[in-house]
Protein backbone atom coordinates (compact mmCIF):
# COMPACT_ATOMS: atom_id res chain seq x y z
CA UNK A 1 0.00 0.00 0.00
CA UNK A 2 1.37 3.38 -0.89
CA UNK A 3 1.83 5.46 2.19
CA UNK A 4 0.64 8.95 1.65
CA UNK A 5 1.87 11.90 3.59
CA UNK A 6 -0.75 14.53 3.98
CA UNK A 7 0.78 17.93 3.95
CA UNK A 8 -2.14 20.19 3.27
CA UNK A 9 -5.87 20.28 3.73
CA UNK A 10 -6.18 20.09 0.01
CA UNK A 11 -4.91 16.51 0.00
CA UNK A 12 -8.31 15.16 0.98
CA UNK A 13 -10.18 17.53 -1.24
CA UNK A 14 -8.41 16.85 -4.53
CA UNK A 15 -10.17 14.62 -7.04
CA UNK A 16 -7.22 12.28 -7.31
CA UNK A 17 -5.45 10.89 -4.32
CA UNK A 18 -1.98 10.99 -5.82
CA UNK A 19 -0.06 10.95 -9.07
CA UNK A 20 -0.44 7.19 -9.51
CA UNK A 21 -4.17 7.45 -9.34
CA UNK A 22 -4.16 10.41 -11.69
CA UNK A 23 -2.00 8.49 -14.15
CA UNK A 24 -4.24 5.44 -13.99
CA UNK A 25 -7.38 7.44 -14.66
CA UNK A 26 -5.62 9.37 -17.43
CA UNK A 27 -4.86 6.08 -19.18
CA UNK A 28 -8.41 4.87 -18.66
CA UNK A 29 -9.80 8.14 -19.99
CA UNK A 30 -7.54 8.09 -23.05
CA UNK A 31 -8.59 4.51 -23.80
CA UNK A 32 -12.25 5.43 -23.51
CA UNK A 33 -11.81 8.36 -25.88
CA UNK A 34 -9.92 6.22 -28.37
CA UNK A 35 -12.43 3.37 -28.12
CA UNK A 36 -14.19 3.99 -31.49
CA UNK A 37 -10.90 3.21 -33.24
CA UNK A 38 -10.24 0.16 -31.13
CA UNK A 39 -13.47 -1.84 -31.33
CA UNK A 40 -16.13 -2.54 -33.93
CA UNK A 41 -19.39 -0.71 -34.33
CA UNK A 42 -21.48 -3.36 -32.62
CA UNK A 43 -19.34 -3.38 -29.50
CA UNK A 44 -19.24 0.40 -29.51
CA UNK A 45 -23.02 0.39 -29.39
CA UNK A 46 -22.90 -2.04 -26.50
CA UNK A 47 -20.44 0.13 -24.62
CA UNK A 48 -22.64 3.17 -25.23
CA UNK A 49 -25.45 1.17 -23.68
CA UNK A 50 -23.22 0.40 -20.70
CA UNK A 51 -22.55 4.10 -20.24
CA UNK A 52 -26.26 4.95 -20.39
CA UNK A 53 -26.96 2.36 -17.70
CA UNK A 54 -23.97 3.60 -15.71
CA UNK A 55 -25.38 7.13 -15.68
CA UNK A 56 -28.75 5.86 -14.49
CA UNK A 57 -26.88 3.71 -11.98
CA UNK A 58 -24.98 6.70 -10.62
CA UNK A 59 -28.24 8.55 -10.23
CA UNK A 60 -29.76 5.74 -8.27
CA UNK A 61 -26.53 5.18 -6.36
CA UNK A 62 -26.65 8.69 -4.96
CA UNK A 63 -30.00 7.86 -3.47
CA UNK A 64 -29.46 4.27 -2.40
CA UNK A 65 -25.76 3.98 -1.80
CA UNK A 66 -25.07 7.49 -0.57
CA UNK A 67 -28.28 8.43 1.21
CA UNK A 68 -29.57 4.97 2.10
CA UNK A 69 -33.02 5.40 0.53
CA UNK A 70 -34.07 2.36 -1.47
CA UNK A 71 -35.96 3.19 -4.62
CA UNK A 72 -37.74 0.58 -6.68
CA UNK A 73 -39.15 3.23 -8.96
CA UNK A 74 -36.36 4.86 -10.87
CA UNK A 75 -37.56 3.73 -14.27
CA UNK A 76 -40.21 6.39 -13.79
CA UNK A 77 -37.52 9.05 -13.98
CA UNK A 78 -35.84 7.42 -16.92
CA UNK A 79 -39.25 7.82 -18.53
CA UNK A 80 -39.63 11.43 -17.44
CA UNK A 81 -36.20 12.32 -18.84
CA UNK A 82 -36.81 10.42 -22.04
CA UNK A 83 -40.28 11.79 -22.77
CA UNK A 84 -39.50 15.33 -21.63
CA UNK A 85 -36.45 15.50 -23.86
CA UNK A 86 -38.31 14.36 -26.96
CA UNK A 87 -41.49 16.33 -26.26
CA UNK A 88 -39.51 19.50 -25.63
CA UNK A 89 -37.77 19.09 -28.97
CA UNK A 90 -40.78 18.04 -31.02
CA UNK A 91 -43.61 19.99 -29.43
CA UNK A 92 -41.88 23.00 -27.96
CA UNK A 93 -39.36 23.14 -30.77
CA UNK A 94 -36.46 23.58 -28.41
CA UNK A 95 -33.00 22.68 -29.68
CA UNK A 96 -31.42 19.57 -28.19
CA UNK A 97 -28.83 21.54 -26.24
CA UNK A 98 -31.66 23.17 -24.31
CA UNK A 99 -34.11 20.28 -24.21
CA UNK A 100 -31.58 17.76 -22.91
CA UNK A 101 -30.51 19.55 -19.70
CA UNK A 102 -34.05 20.77 -19.22
CA UNK A 103 -35.30 17.18 -19.34
CA UNK A 104 -32.84 16.35 -16.59
CA UNK A 105 -34.01 19.33 -14.58
CA UNK A 106 -37.68 18.44 -14.98
CA UNK A 107 -36.93 14.93 -13.81
CA UNK A 108 -34.93 16.27 -10.89
CA UNK A 109 -37.56 18.76 -9.75
CA UNK A 110 -40.29 16.17 -10.13
CA UNK A 111 -38.22 13.69 -8.15
CA UNK A 112 -37.71 16.14 -5.31
CA UNK A 113 -41.41 17.04 -5.28
CA UNK A 114 -42.56 13.44 -5.29
CA UNK A 115 -40.04 12.72 -2.56
CA UNK A 116 -41.60 15.27 -0.23
CA UNK A 117 -44.45 13.04 0.95
CA UNK A 118 -42.18 9.99 0.82
CA UNK A 119 -39.27 11.19 2.89
CA UNK A 120 -40.96 10.22 6.11
CA UNK A 121 -41.04 6.61 4.98
CA UNK A 122 -38.39 4.06 5.75
CA UNK A 123 -37.03 0.87 4.30
CA UNK A 124 -39.87 -1.31 3.22
CA UNK A 125 -42.49 1.44 3.06
CA UNK A 126 -40.32 3.52 0.81
CA UNK A 127 -39.57 0.50 -1.36
CA UNK A 128 -43.27 -0.22 -1.83
CA UNK A 129 -44.18 3.41 -2.38
CA UNK A 130 -41.55 3.82 -5.07
CA UNK A 131 -42.57 0.51 -6.61
CA UNK A 132 -46.14 1.75 -6.78
CA UNK A 133 -44.94 5.01 -8.29
CA UNK A 134 -43.22 3.06 -11.01
CA UNK A 135 -46.39 1.10 -11.76
CA UNK A 136 -48.47 4.24 -11.95
CA UNK A 137 -46.02 5.96 -14.27
CA UNK A 138 -46.75 3.49 -17.04
CA UNK A 139 -50.47 4.18 -16.65
CA UNK A 140 -49.97 7.91 -16.53
CA UNK A 141 -47.96 7.90 -19.75
CA UNK A 142 -50.78 6.00 -21.42
CA UNK A 143 -53.41 8.37 -20.03
CA UNK A 144 -51.40 11.35 -21.27
CA UNK A 145 -51.65 10.06 -24.82
CA UNK A 146 -51.96 13.44 -26.58
CA UNK A 147 -48.54 14.33 -25.26
CA UNK A 148 -46.83 10.97 -25.06
CA UNK A 149 -48.33 9.04 -27.91
CA UNK A 150 -49.83 6.55 -25.43
CA UNK A 151 -49.12 2.89 -26.07
CA UNK A 152 -47.93 3.79 -29.57
CA UNK A 153 -44.92 5.56 -28.15
CA UNK A 154 -42.75 8.28 -29.64
CA UNK A 155 -39.95 8.63 -32.14
CA UNK A 156 -36.77 10.30 -30.97
CA UNK A 157 -35.28 12.69 -33.53
CA UNK A 158 -31.57 12.76 -34.28
CA UNK A 159 -29.47 14.66 -31.80
CA UNK A 160 -28.50 18.03 -33.14
CA UNK A 161 -25.56 19.64 -31.36
CA UNK A 162 -25.02 23.18 -32.63
CA UNK A 163 -25.87 22.13 -36.15
CA UNK A 164 -23.92 18.88 -36.00
CA UNK A 165 -26.40 16.03 -36.41
CA UNK A 166 -25.75 12.78 -34.57
CA UNK A 167 -27.65 9.66 -35.47
CA UNK A 168 -27.04 6.60 -33.35
CA UNK A 169 -26.57 4.38 -36.39
CA UNK A 170 -25.21 6.91 -38.85
CA UNK A 171 -22.55 8.20 -36.51
CA UNK A 172 -22.06 5.74 -33.65
CA UNK A 173 -18.71 7.21 -32.64
CA UNK A 174 -20.14 10.68 -32.13
CA UNK A 175 -23.09 9.24 -30.24
CA UNK A 176 -20.66 7.35 -28.04
CA UNK A 177 -18.53 10.43 -27.39
CA UNK A 178 -21.55 12.45 -26.48
CA UNK A 179 -22.65 9.76 -24.02
CA UNK A 180 -19.12 9.55 -22.65
CA UNK A 181 -19.06 13.30 -22.09
CA UNK A 182 -22.33 13.17 -20.15
CA UNK A 183 -21.02 10.22 -18.18
CA UNK A 184 -17.87 12.09 -17.21
CA UNK A 185 -19.93 15.12 -16.27
CA UNK A 186 -22.05 12.96 -13.97
CA UNK A 187 -18.98 11.33 -12.42
CA UNK A 188 -17.57 14.77 -11.81
CA UNK A 189 -20.64 16.15 -10.04
CA UNK A 190 -20.96 12.91 -8.09
CA UNK A 191 -17.38 13.28 -6.88
CA UNK A 192 -17.98 16.92 -6.08
CA UNK A 193 -20.95 15.98 -3.97
CA UNK A 194 -18.90 13.45 -2.05
CA UNK A 195 -16.33 16.04 -1.07
CA UNK A 196 -18.75 18.76 -0.06
CA UNK A 197 -21.10 19.29 2.89
CA UNK A 198 -24.17 17.97 1.11
CA UNK A 199 -22.54 14.64 0.33
CA UNK A 200 -21.60 14.26 3.97
CA UNK A 201 -25.12 15.14 4.98
CA UNK A 202 -26.33 12.32 2.69
CA UNK A 203 -24.03 9.88 4.43
CA UNK A 204 -25.18 11.18 7.80
CA UNK A 205 -28.81 10.56 6.90
CA UNK A 206 -27.92 7.10 5.66
CA UNK A 207 -26.05 6.07 8.80
CA UNK A 208 -28.03 7.70 11.60
CA UNK A 209 -30.99 9.96 11.19
CA UNK A 210 -31.18 11.03 14.83
CA UNK A 211 -27.57 11.92 14.87
CA UNK A 212 -27.77 13.76 11.56
CA UNK A 213 -30.61 15.80 12.98
CA UNK A 214 -28.61 16.64 16.08
CA UNK A 215 -25.79 17.87 13.82
CA UNK A 216 -28.18 20.32 12.24
CA UNK A 217 -29.00 18.31 9.13
CA UNK A 218 -32.59 18.81 8.06
CA UNK A 219 -33.33 15.17 7.35
CA UNK A 220 -36.49 15.41 5.19
CA UNK A 221 -35.04 18.26 3.15
CA UNK A 222 -31.76 16.42 2.65
CA UNK A 223 -33.60 13.32 1.50
CA UNK A 224 -35.67 15.37 -0.92
CA UNK A 225 -32.50 16.94 -2.33
CA UNK A 226 -30.94 13.51 -2.66
CA UNK A 227 -34.02 12.43 -4.59
CA UNK A 228 -33.72 15.51 -6.76
CA UNK A 229 -30.05 15.06 -7.61
CA UNK A 230 -30.61 11.37 -8.14
CA UNK A 231 -33.55 11.79 -10.46
CA UNK A 232 -31.82 14.61 -12.32
CA UNK A 233 -28.99 12.27 -13.29
CA UNK A 234 -31.37 9.41 -14.01
CA UNK A 235 -33.42 11.79 -16.16
CA UNK A 236 -30.35 12.65 -18.22
CA UNK A 237 -29.74 8.97 -18.71
CA UNK A 238 -33.35 8.52 -19.83
CA UNK A 239 -32.98 11.34 -22.34
CA UNK A 240 -29.96 9.69 -23.95
CA UNK A 241 -31.68 6.32 -23.79
CA UNK A 242 -34.52 7.74 -25.87
CA UNK A 243 -32.14 8.71 -28.65
CA UNK A 244 -30.34 5.41 -28.29
CA UNK A 245 -33.39 3.19 -28.73
CA UNK A 246 -35.00 5.55 -31.25
CA UNK A 247 -38.59 4.45 -30.67
CA UNK A 248 -39.92 4.03 -27.19
CA UNK A 249 -43.20 3.07 -25.57
CA UNK A 250 -44.29 3.06 -21.90
CA UNK A 251 -43.28 -0.60 -21.90
CA UNK A 252 -39.60 0.44 -22.02
CA UNK A 253 -39.96 1.95 -18.56
CA UNK A 254 -42.03 -0.64 -16.78
CA UNK A 255 -41.60 -1.66 -13.20
CA UNK A 256 -39.20 -4.47 -14.06
CA UNK A 257 -36.76 -1.88 -15.38
CA UNK A 258 -36.97 -0.10 -12.04
CA UNK A 259 -36.22 -3.31 -10.22
CA UNK A 260 -33.39 -4.10 -12.57
CA UNK A 261 -31.76 -0.72 -11.94
CA UNK A 262 -31.70 -1.34 -8.23
CA UNK A 263 -30.40 -4.87 -8.62
CA UNK A 264 -27.76 -3.56 -10.99
CA UNK A 265 -26.17 -1.19 -8.53
CA UNK A 266 -26.30 -3.85 -5.83
CA UNK A 267 -24.38 -6.29 -7.99
CA UNK A 268 -21.93 -3.51 -8.78
CA UNK A 269 -21.40 -2.56 -5.15
CA UNK A 270 -23.49 -0.15 -3.13
CA UNK A 271 -22.04 3.18 -2.13
CA UNK A 272 -19.36 3.49 -4.78
CA UNK A 273 -19.20 5.11 -8.20
CA UNK A 274 -17.32 2.06 -9.43
CA UNK A 275 -20.33 0.02 -8.44
CA UNK A 276 -22.56 1.84 -10.91
CA UNK A 277 -20.16 1.03 -13.73
CA UNK A 278 -19.56 -2.58 -12.75
CA UNK A 279 -23.29 -3.14 -12.42
CA UNK A 280 -23.97 -1.51 -15.78
CA UNK A 281 -21.38 -3.75 -17.41
CA UNK A 282 -23.12 -6.82 -16.04
CA UNK A 283 -26.64 -5.72 -17.01
CA UNK A 284 -25.78 -4.44 -20.45
CA UNK A 285 -23.38 -7.17 -21.44
CA UNK A 286 -25.11 -10.19 -19.90
CA UNK A 287 -27.40 -10.85 -22.90
CA UNK A 288 -24.47 -10.46 -25.29
CA UNK A 289 -22.36 -12.65 -23.04
CA UNK A 290 -24.97 -15.39 -22.92
CA UNK A 291 -25.36 -15.18 -26.68
CA UNK A 292 -21.61 -15.50 -27.17
CA UNK A 293 -21.46 -18.42 -24.75
CA UNK A 294 -24.16 -20.14 -26.77
CA UNK A 295 -22.30 -19.54 -30.03
CA UNK A 296 -19.12 -20.80 -28.48
CA UNK A 297 -20.83 -23.95 -27.27
CA UNK A 298 -22.25 -24.54 -30.73
CA UNK A 299 -18.91 -23.99 -32.46
CA UNK A 300 -16.54 -25.76 -30.10
CA UNK A 301 -18.53 -28.40 -28.30
CA UNK A 302 -21.04 -28.98 -31.01
CA UNK A 303 -23.82 -28.35 -28.57
CA UNK A 304 -26.60 -26.37 -30.13
CA UNK A 305 -28.86 -24.93 -27.52
CA UNK A 306 -32.10 -23.32 -28.38
CA UNK A 307 -32.65 -19.91 -26.94
CA UNK A 308 -34.05 -20.32 -23.45
CA UNK A 309 -36.55 -17.56 -22.77
CA UNK A 310 -35.88 -15.45 -19.71
CA UNK A 311 -32.42 -16.93 -19.22
CA UNK A 312 -30.80 -13.52 -18.83
CA UNK A 313 -33.01 -12.37 -16.02
CA UNK A 314 -32.75 -15.69 -14.24
CA UNK A 315 -28.97 -15.77 -14.57
CA UNK A 316 -28.91 -12.26 -13.25
CA UNK A 317 -31.09 -13.30 -10.33
CA UNK A 318 -28.77 -16.14 -9.47
CA UNK A 319 -25.68 -13.93 -9.72
CA UNK A 320 -27.37 -11.46 -7.43
CA UNK A 321 -28.27 -14.04 -4.80
CA UNK A 322 -24.73 -15.38 -4.89
CA UNK A 323 -23.38 -11.88 -4.34
CA UNK A 324 -25.66 -11.16 -1.44
CA UNK A 325 -24.61 -14.39 0.21
CA UNK A 326 -20.91 -14.26 -0.42
CA UNK A 327 -19.91 -10.71 -1.31
CA UNK A 328 -22.45 -8.09 -0.27
CA UNK A 329 -20.16 -5.33 -1.48
CA UNK A 330 -20.73 -6.63 -5.00
CA UNK A 331 -18.20 -6.53 -7.80
CA UNK A 332 -16.63 -3.52 -6.18
CA UNK A 333 -15.84 -5.69 -3.16
CA UNK A 334 -14.03 -8.22 -5.33
CA UNK A 335 -12.22 -5.46 -7.16
CA UNK A 336 -11.11 -3.80 -3.92
CA UNK A 337 -9.74 -7.09 -2.66
CA UNK A 338 -7.82 -7.72 -5.84
CA UNK A 339 -6.39 -4.24 -5.77
CA UNK A 340 -5.24 -4.63 -2.21
CA UNK A 341 -3.78 -7.99 -3.07
CA UNK A 342 -1.61 -6.52 -5.79
CA UNK A 343 -0.66 -3.46 -3.82
CA UNK A 344 0.51 -5.53 -0.90
CA UNK A 345 2.03 -8.35 -2.90
CA UNK A 346 3.41 -10.59 -1.43
CA UNK A 347 2.12 -9.63 1.99
CA UNK A 348 -1.59 -10.17 1.51
CA UNK A 349 -3.05 -12.24 4.30
CA UNK A 350 -6.14 -14.33 4.16
CA UNK A 351 -8.75 -12.80 6.33
CA UNK A 352 -7.82 -9.18 5.77
CA UNK A 353 -11.32 -8.53 4.64
CA UNK A 354 -13.12 -10.67 7.15
CA UNK A 355 -16.58 -9.27 7.34
CA UNK A 356 -17.48 -7.45 10.49
CA UNK A 357 -19.91 -9.44 12.49
CA UNK A 358 -23.12 -7.57 12.38
CA UNK A 359 -26.18 -8.05 14.45
CA UNK A 360 -29.77 -7.81 13.50
CA UNK A 361 -30.57 -4.18 13.48
CA UNK A 362 -34.23 -3.78 13.94
CA UNK A 363 -35.64 -1.41 11.39
CA UNK A 364 -38.87 -0.98 13.23
CA UNK A 365 -37.13 1.57 15.38
CA UNK A 366 -36.08 4.82 13.86
Amino acid at each position, binding site marked *: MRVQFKTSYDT*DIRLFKDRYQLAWYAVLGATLIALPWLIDVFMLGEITNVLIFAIAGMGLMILVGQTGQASLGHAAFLAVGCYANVILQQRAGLPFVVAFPLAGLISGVLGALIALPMVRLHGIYLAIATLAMSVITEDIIIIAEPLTGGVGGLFAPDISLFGYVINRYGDPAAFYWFTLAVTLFCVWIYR*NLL*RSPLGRAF*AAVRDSE*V*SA*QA*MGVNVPKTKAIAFG*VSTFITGLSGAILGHYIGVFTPEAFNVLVSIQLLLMIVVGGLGTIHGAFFGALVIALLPTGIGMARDWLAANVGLTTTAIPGLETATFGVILIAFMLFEPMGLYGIWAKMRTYFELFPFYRQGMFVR*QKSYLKTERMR
Partner: protein
Amino acid sequence: MSLLSVRNVTMKFGGLVAVNDVSFDVEKGEVFALVGPNGAGKSTVFNLISRFYDPFEGEIVFDGENLLDHAPSDIAQLGIARTFQNIELFENATVLQNMLVGRHTHRTSNLLSELFFLPSVRRAEIAHRRAVEDAIDFLNLHAYRDQLIAGLPYGVRKVVEMGRAMAIGPKLLLLDEPASGLSMEETQDVAFWVEDIKKIRGITVLMVEHDMHLVASVSDRVMALADGKRLALGTPQEVQNDPEVIKAYIGAPDDEQEAA
Protein backbone atom coordinates in the same frame (compact mmCIF):
# COMPACT_ATOMS: atom_id res chain seq x y z
CA MET B 1 -29.60 35.14 32.74
CA SER B 2 -28.96 31.41 32.61
CA LEU B 3 -27.76 29.86 29.38
CA LEU B 4 -30.27 27.04 29.53
CA SER B 5 -33.38 27.01 31.53
CA VAL B 6 -35.67 24.00 31.78
CA ARG B 7 -38.98 24.97 33.34
CA ASN B 8 -41.54 22.56 34.73
CA VAL B 9 -41.01 20.05 31.96
CA THR B 10 -43.07 16.87 31.90
CA MET B 11 -42.73 14.08 29.36
CA LYS B 12 -44.95 11.03 29.06
CA PHE B 13 -44.59 7.88 26.99
CA GLY B 14 -48.04 6.37 27.01
CA GLY B 15 -48.78 5.93 30.67
CA LEU B 16 -45.17 6.24 31.75
CA VAL B 17 -44.12 9.60 33.12
CA ALA B 18 -40.45 9.68 32.12
CA VAL B 19 -39.85 13.27 33.23
CA ASN B 20 -42.07 14.71 35.91
CA ASP B 21 -42.25 18.48 36.36
CA VAL B 22 -38.51 19.01 36.27
CA SER B 23 -36.90 22.47 36.42
CA PHE B 24 -33.28 23.52 36.43
CA ASP B 25 -31.01 26.25 35.09
CA VAL B 26 -27.56 25.82 33.64
CA GLU B 27 -25.37 28.88 34.01
CA LYS B 28 -22.93 30.05 31.39
CA GLY B 29 -19.48 28.53 31.84
CA GLU B 30 -20.35 25.80 34.32
CA VAL B 31 -20.27 22.03 34.16
CA PHE B 32 -23.65 20.75 35.22
CA ALA B 33 -24.15 17.04 35.83
CA LEU B 34 -27.35 15.00 35.79
CA VAL B 35 -27.22 11.86 37.87
CA GLY B 36 -29.71 9.21 38.77
CA PRO B 37 -30.40 5.50 38.44
CA ASN B 38 -31.13 3.91 35.08
CA GLY B 39 -34.51 4.89 33.72
CA ALA B 40 -34.58 8.05 35.78
CA GLY B 41 -35.27 10.14 32.70
CA LYS B 42 -31.86 11.72 32.17
CA SER B 43 -31.54 10.86 28.49
CA THR B 44 -35.13 11.92 28.01
CA VAL B 45 -34.19 15.36 29.31
CA PHE B 46 -31.43 15.48 26.68
CA ASN B 47 -33.82 14.33 23.99
CA LEU B 48 -36.25 17.04 25.00
CA ILE B 49 -33.55 19.67 24.71
CA SER B 50 -32.64 18.20 21.31
CA ARG B 51 -36.33 18.53 20.40
CA PHE B 52 -36.65 14.84 19.51
CA TYR B 53 -39.84 14.86 21.55
CA ASP B 54 -42.41 17.50 22.29
CA PRO B 55 -42.74 17.87 26.02
CA PHE B 56 -46.16 17.22 27.47
CA GLU B 57 -45.84 20.38 29.51
CA GLY B 58 -43.29 23.06 30.34
CA GLU B 59 -40.81 25.10 28.37
CA ILE B 60 -37.13 25.10 27.58
CA VAL B 61 -35.31 28.37 26.99
CA PHE B 62 -31.79 28.52 25.60
CA ASP B 63 -29.89 31.76 25.24
CA GLY B 64 -33.10 33.75 25.09
CA GLU B 65 -34.74 31.45 22.52
CA ASN B 66 -37.71 29.29 23.31
CA LEU B 67 -36.54 25.92 22.02
CA LEU B 68 -40.08 24.70 21.54
CA ASP B 69 -40.39 27.17 18.66
CA HIS B 70 -37.60 25.39 16.82
CA ALA B 71 -37.32 22.23 14.76
CA PRO B 72 -34.90 19.50 15.90
CA SER B 73 -32.51 20.28 13.08
CA ASP B 74 -32.25 23.93 14.19
CA ILE B 75 -30.94 23.09 17.63
CA ALA B 76 -27.33 22.68 16.54
CA GLN B 77 -27.50 26.00 14.74
CA LEU B 78 -28.56 27.66 17.99
CA GLY B 79 -25.40 26.37 19.62
CA ILE B 80 -26.30 23.09 21.31
CA ALA B 81 -24.20 20.02 20.48
CA ARG B 82 -24.64 16.58 21.93
CA THR B 83 -23.39 13.02 22.17
CA PHE B 84 -25.47 9.90 22.64
CA GLN B 85 -25.52 7.29 25.33
CA ASN B 86 -25.14 4.44 22.82
CA ILE B 87 -22.94 6.25 20.31
CA GLU B 88 -24.67 7.38 17.16
CA LEU B 89 -21.82 7.88 14.75
CA PHE B 90 -21.95 7.58 10.97
CA GLU B 91 -20.63 4.05 10.74
CA ASN B 92 -19.70 3.92 7.09
CA ALA B 93 -17.76 7.15 7.08
CA THR B 94 -14.29 8.03 8.31
CA VAL B 95 -13.48 9.85 11.52
CA LEU B 96 -12.68 12.97 9.53
CA GLN B 97 -15.96 12.81 7.61
CA ASN B 98 -17.90 12.30 10.82
CA MET B 99 -16.35 15.34 12.35
CA LEU B 100 -16.89 17.35 9.21
CA VAL B 101 -20.61 16.64 9.50
CA GLY B 102 -20.32 18.54 12.73
CA ARG B 103 -19.51 21.56 10.59
CA HIS B 104 -22.81 21.31 8.79
CA THR B 105 -24.25 24.28 10.62
CA HIS B 106 -21.40 26.35 9.19
CA ARG B 107 -22.25 25.41 5.64
CA THR B 108 -22.12 28.49 3.43
CA SER B 109 -22.49 26.85 0.04
CA ASN B 110 -25.61 25.66 -1.76
CA LEU B 111 -26.50 22.70 -3.93
CA LEU B 112 -25.39 24.27 -7.20
CA SER B 113 -22.05 25.58 -6.00
CA GLU B 114 -21.30 22.22 -4.44
CA LEU B 115 -22.23 20.23 -7.54
CA PHE B 116 -19.71 22.27 -9.49
CA PHE B 117 -17.31 22.58 -6.56
CA LEU B 118 -16.76 26.29 -7.14
CA PRO B 119 -13.67 27.91 -5.65
CA SER B 120 -15.79 29.30 -2.83
CA VAL B 121 -16.73 25.74 -1.85
CA ARG B 122 -13.09 24.72 -1.89
CA ARG B 123 -12.17 27.64 0.36
CA ALA B 124 -14.98 26.79 2.76
CA GLU B 125 -13.91 23.15 2.79
CA ILE B 126 -10.41 24.14 3.77
CA ALA B 127 -11.77 26.30 6.57
CA HIS B 128 -13.94 23.39 7.79
CA ARG B 129 -10.95 21.11 7.77
CA ARG B 130 -8.90 23.58 9.73
CA ALA B 131 -11.59 23.70 12.40
CA VAL B 132 -11.88 19.93 12.49
CA GLU B 133 -8.12 19.38 12.62
CA ASP B 134 -8.21 21.57 15.66
CA ALA B 135 -10.63 19.20 17.38
CA ILE B 136 -8.58 16.22 16.20
CA ASP B 137 -5.52 17.79 17.83
CA PHE B 138 -7.39 18.52 21.00
CA LEU B 139 -8.66 14.96 21.36
CA ASN B 140 -5.56 13.28 20.00
CA LEU B 141 -7.34 11.46 17.21
CA HIS B 142 -4.62 11.70 14.53
CA ALA B 143 -4.05 7.99 14.42
CA TYR B 144 -7.66 7.32 13.44
CA ARG B 145 -8.27 10.26 11.15
CA ASP B 146 -8.94 8.35 7.93
CA GLN B 147 -10.34 5.16 9.40
CA LEU B 148 -13.93 4.03 9.09
CA ILE B 149 -15.92 4.18 12.30
CA ALA B 150 -17.10 0.61 11.76
CA GLY B 151 -13.63 -0.70 12.61
CA LEU B 152 -12.84 1.44 15.66
CA PRO B 153 -12.73 0.33 19.29
CA TYR B 154 -15.47 1.49 21.60
CA GLY B 155 -13.36 3.96 23.55
CA VAL B 156 -12.20 5.73 20.41
CA ARG B 157 -15.75 6.01 19.15
CA LYS B 158 -16.79 7.79 22.31
CA VAL B 159 -14.02 10.31 21.78
CA VAL B 160 -14.87 10.75 18.10
CA GLU B 161 -18.43 11.49 19.05
CA MET B 162 -17.24 14.15 21.44
CA GLY B 163 -15.02 15.58 18.72
CA ARG B 164 -17.92 15.70 16.30
CA ALA B 165 -19.99 17.60 18.82
CA MET B 166 -17.10 20.01 19.43
CA ALA B 167 -16.76 20.63 15.70
CA ILE B 168 -20.15 22.30 15.80
CA GLY B 169 -18.54 25.03 17.86
CA PRO B 170 -21.35 24.98 20.40
CA LYS B 171 -22.16 27.18 23.35
CA LEU B 172 -23.61 24.24 25.24
CA LEU B 173 -22.36 20.70 25.02
CA LEU B 174 -24.61 17.82 26.12
CA LEU B 175 -22.66 14.69 26.99
CA ASP B 176 -24.74 11.57 27.63
CA GLU B 177 -22.64 9.20 29.73
CA PRO B 178 -19.29 10.21 28.19
CA ALA B 179 -17.31 7.77 30.34
CA SER B 180 -19.56 4.71 30.38
CA GLY B 181 -17.72 1.66 29.15
CA LEU B 182 -14.35 3.39 29.24
CA SER B 183 -11.23 2.24 31.04
CA MET B 184 -9.77 4.10 34.04
CA GLU B 185 -7.25 5.95 31.86
CA GLU B 186 -9.81 6.82 29.25
CA THR B 187 -12.13 8.13 31.96
CA GLN B 188 -9.27 10.23 33.24
CA ASP B 189 -8.83 11.68 29.76
CA VAL B 190 -12.50 12.53 29.64
CA ALA B 191 -12.14 14.38 32.93
CA PHE B 192 -9.27 16.46 31.52
CA TRP B 193 -11.13 17.18 28.33
CA VAL B 194 -14.24 18.30 30.11
CA GLU B 195 -12.10 20.64 32.23
CA ASP B 196 -10.40 22.01 29.13
CA ILE B 197 -13.65 22.36 27.23
CA LYS B 198 -14.93 24.50 30.04
CA LYS B 199 -11.79 26.47 30.84
CA ILE B 200 -10.01 26.88 27.49
CA ARG B 201 -12.92 26.78 25.07
CA GLY B 202 -15.41 28.42 27.36
CA ILE B 203 -18.12 25.92 26.47
CA THR B 204 -20.83 25.18 29.01
CA VAL B 205 -21.27 21.46 29.65
CA LEU B 206 -24.38 19.56 30.68
CA MET B 207 -23.60 15.92 31.22
CA VAL B 208 -25.20 12.70 32.34
CA GLU B 209 -22.76 10.45 34.14
CA HIS B 210 -22.82 7.49 36.48
CA ASP B 211 -19.20 7.63 37.57
CA MET B 212 -19.61 9.71 40.75
CA HIS B 213 -15.90 10.18 40.98
CA LEU B 214 -15.80 11.84 37.58
CA VAL B 215 -18.90 13.87 38.40
CA ALA B 216 -17.42 15.08 41.67
CA SER B 217 -14.13 16.02 40.07
CA VAL B 218 -15.39 18.03 37.11
CA SER B 219 -18.84 19.38 37.80
CA ASP B 220 -19.80 22.61 39.47
CA ARG B 221 -23.34 21.59 40.18
CA VAL B 222 -25.26 18.35 40.12
CA MET B 223 -28.91 17.50 39.85
CA ALA B 224 -30.19 14.09 40.90
CA LEU B 225 -33.21 12.57 39.18
CA ALA B 226 -35.19 9.47 40.06
CA ASP B 227 -38.34 8.21 38.38
CA GLY B 228 -38.46 11.41 36.40
CA LYS B 229 -38.56 13.63 39.48
CA ARG B 230 -35.94 16.02 40.68
CA LEU B 231 -34.53 14.79 44.00
CA ALA B 232 -31.79 17.28 44.76
CA LEU B 233 -29.75 20.02 43.18
CA GLY B 234 -26.52 21.51 44.50
CA THR B 235 -22.77 21.02 44.65
CA PRO B 236 -21.52 17.46 44.15
CA GLN B 237 -21.03 17.06 47.91
CA GLU B 238 -24.46 18.31 48.78
CA VAL B 239 -26.13 16.00 46.34
CA GLN B 240 -24.05 12.98 47.32
CA ASN B 241 -25.00 13.46 50.95
CA ASP B 242 -28.65 14.16 50.31
CA PRO B 243 -30.76 11.55 52.16
CA GLU B 244 -33.29 11.37 49.32
CA VAL B 245 -30.53 10.63 46.84
CA ILE B 246 -28.99 7.97 49.03
CA LYS B 247 -32.38 6.39 49.38
CA ALA B 248 -32.97 6.38 45.62
CA TYR B 249 -29.62 4.78 44.93
CA ILE B 250 -29.62 2.20 47.68
CA GLY B 251 -33.32 1.57 47.48
CA ALA B 252 -35.82 2.15 50.20
CA PRO B 253 -36.05 -1.00 52.30
CA ASP B 254 -38.96 0.28 54.38
CA ASP B 255 -41.10 1.20 51.42
CA GLU B 256 -40.43 -2.07 49.71
CA GLN B 257 -41.42 -4.07 52.74
CA GLU B 258 -44.61 -2.13 53.01
CA ALA B 259 -45.38 -2.74 49.36
CA ALA B 260 -44.68 -6.46 49.73
